[in-house]
């Protein structure tokens, strides 16, 4: 399993804030993705209608998930493929290892897949003497670095060009040490050449899936590098690993959702490659795998059905929510401490690894709502983060001091007369204290505020007190 550092979110965040290269890299997220999505959305007058449509398609699929999953599995088998049901990450790893063993596989190539991150597949395969090779450029880079993705569609967004160059020189020792790697395109070319070899060595190709189509038993991947196609068509065996909520009823549904996916993610109309695979190679096919397996993973999803978190299962992993998130912009993806970062991670992670481990995530949000405003699947992310806060509150998981403070505040907030008597005195005093400067540089119990900013002093005298003085009870509702 991927190591969980979500409980240390605050420390992770502090580290990230002090990491100058990371901060520079995050600047690119802020400028690039947002502008591109805005242009793409603007250019398509029916964009918002397509979002409604996409939401409805997934809602329907989730409402009949069992039915569509069975239909899908039947179709896969009818096409000559094999379907494996995995309830847990452990089950999925086992199933995949068994397939590897049955093929005597030494090397597997991998297309970009968050689900194999979720089940910690690479480390597990390595432990069992199978070498996984990431073929997406970003994934390849972080594999060389021994890291995990910091973004669900741009896994190496935290790495800069100089770091990549150093990694390539360190690992690609068979190449001329004096070669020139100044240009990003040279780096790309080198990665291509190295990976090309691996495609031909690989015994198995493993991909994720963006969609599973019930109507046809087809798995769909979208990529920009074409690496997914080579991964799944060159080796003799293709293994698709996908979580159960990837299901959609028809090919028409896929084409509907595709229209919002790339636009939301990168601002492209469509990704460069959209690849459909159905079963192993048929007689007349020019290429394709001899053997085709699908591992369908639950890993906690089915227990989200019927709860206040079901809507999260609509997510198509476009990354728009994190691209627009001020907290993600500040700390990057690794600070979140597990596989899924940003707003979607703040909702999904507690469902998958437990809120006691990841309680910070749904709390570390300003509820600015920008994620929800761009989510192509109209997932109410802030609302679901709040639902996690409710679960934490009802289980007394939040810090005692915060609970105590909140309880005290609520006691007075529910008693207007008492509240006003108290605030009249307190604010009067505070106003007098702050009169000379108009603000405080430090304030007992408000260190969280005054560590970084001044606290503006009250003007003096509450509004209620001043209003009562001017109008008595004549213009006051008294209930």
């Amino acid at each position: 399993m991927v190591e969980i550092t979500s409980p240390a979110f605050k420390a992770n965040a502090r580290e990230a804030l002090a990491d100058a290269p990371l901060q520079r890299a995050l600047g690119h997220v802020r400028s690039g993705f947002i502008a591109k999505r805005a242009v793409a959305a603007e250019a398509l007058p029916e964009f918002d209608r397509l979002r409604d449509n996409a939401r409805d398609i997934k809602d329907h699929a989730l409402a009949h998930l069992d039915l569509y999953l069975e239909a899908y599995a039947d179709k896969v088998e009818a096409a000559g493929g094999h379907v494996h049901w995995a309830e847990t990450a452990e089950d999925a790893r086992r199933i995949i290892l068994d397939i590897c063993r049955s093929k005597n596989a030494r090397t597997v190539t991998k297309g970009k897949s968050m689900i194999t991150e979720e089940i910690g597949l690479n480390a597990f395969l390595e432990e069992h003497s199978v070498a996984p090779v990431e073929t997406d450029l970003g994934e390849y880079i972080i594999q060389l670095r021994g890291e995990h993705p910091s973004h669900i569609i741009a896994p190496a967004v935290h790495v800069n060009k100089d770091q990549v160059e150093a990694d390539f020189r360190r690992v690609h020792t068979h190449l001329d040490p004096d070669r020139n790697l100044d240009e990003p395109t040279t780096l790309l070319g080198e990665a291509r050449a190295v990976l090309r070899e691996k495609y031909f060595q690989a015994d198995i190709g493993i991909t994720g899936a963006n969609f599973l189509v019930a109507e046809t038993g087809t798995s769909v991947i979208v990529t920009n590098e074409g690496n997914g196609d080579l991964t799944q068509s060159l080796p003799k065996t293709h293994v698709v690993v996908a979580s159960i909520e990837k299901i959609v009823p028809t090919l028409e549904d896929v084409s509907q959702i595709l229209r919002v996916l790339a636009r939301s993610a990168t601002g492209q109309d469509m990704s460069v490659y959209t690849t459909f695979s159905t079963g192993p190679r048929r007689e007349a096919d020019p290429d394709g795998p001899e053997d085709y397996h699908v591992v369908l993973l639950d890993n906690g999803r089915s227990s989200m059905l019927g709860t206040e978190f079901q809507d999260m299962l609509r997510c198509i992993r476009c990354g728009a929510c994190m691209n627009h998130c001020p907290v993600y912009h500040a700390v990057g993806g690794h600070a979140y401490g597990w596989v899924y970062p940003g707003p979607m991670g703040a909702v999904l992670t507690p469902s998958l690894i437990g809120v006691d481990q990841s309680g910070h995530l749904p709390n570390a949000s300003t509820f600015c709502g920008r994620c929800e405003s761009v989510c192509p699947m109209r997932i109410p992310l802030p609302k679901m983060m709040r639902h996690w806060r409710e679960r934490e509150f009802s289980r007394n998981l939040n810090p005692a001091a915060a609970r105590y403070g909140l309880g005290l505040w609520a006691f007075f907030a529910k008693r207007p007369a008492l509240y006003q008597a108290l605030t009249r005195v307190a604010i009067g005093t505070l106003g007098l204290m702050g009169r000379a400067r108009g603000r405080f540089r430090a304030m007992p119990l408000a260190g969280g505020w005054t560590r970084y900013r001044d606290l503006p002093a009250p003007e003096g005298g509450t509004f209620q007190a001043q209003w009562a003085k001017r109008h008595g009870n004549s213009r006051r509702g008294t209930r």
Partner: protein
Amino acid sequence: MTANAQHDAQQSPNGRSEAGKAPRVGLFVTCLVDLFRPSVGFAAVKLMEDAGCRVDVPAAQTCCGQPAFNSGDRKDARAIAEGVIRSFEDYDYVVAPSGSCAGMLKKHYAELFDDDDEARARAEAFSAKVFELVSFLADVLGITEVNAQHEGTVTYHDSCSGLRELGIRQQPRRLLRSVEGLELKEMKDSDVCCGFGGTFCVKYPDISNKIVEEKTRTIREAGASLLLAGDLGCLMNMAGKLKREGSAIEVRHVAEVLAGMTDQPAIGEKRRG
């Protein structure tokens, strides 16, 4: 306030106010305005009275309940909401000088009563009457200009709830353009969060600080001498940061400028003279 500020009685959601009669507005002061900046409340009253409203301030109000709601404490949030609804439901309109509090009253109260159809219906009827101040002036009363003067350059920050929950974006800008002498200089990314986020800013001060630093950078780059917004929480956050950074940019609630009530020191500034 100009004369086209005619209240259309047809727009009254409960049909209570008859044609020609001044709409009765209950002012939801908001806890921050009540405690830190009463002048915003008085500016709100002036703006609405100039527009022909009759404004009351129910004594039985404290806070909208958002701190409890956003901390996962639905029980207290609901108890506070019940009190607010009781105090305000007889008015034609309920107006708050804050997008965040108005958003709470308008968009979230009903969901607090999920298990009780009657209470939920009552909350919905209440919420239908709630408006943020500037949206109320522009969208409900149809005001297109104000009778105020302000010599200088201003920049406007779109607070998140007002923008994304209530669709407030053009309304304040349109009214500000009618202020004599005022020049609006837009900042980059005016729709990006300032990092306040209620209790977020004290629970995650390091992250909040990073976000507000970005914000004050874009504010300074705008080159205006006055920063305006419609939410006191965000304003105190941005003012506190600007002052800590030693910036001379002043900070006020948009209502103060629209009402022409800028005699009191700006947020976080000391009294002159």
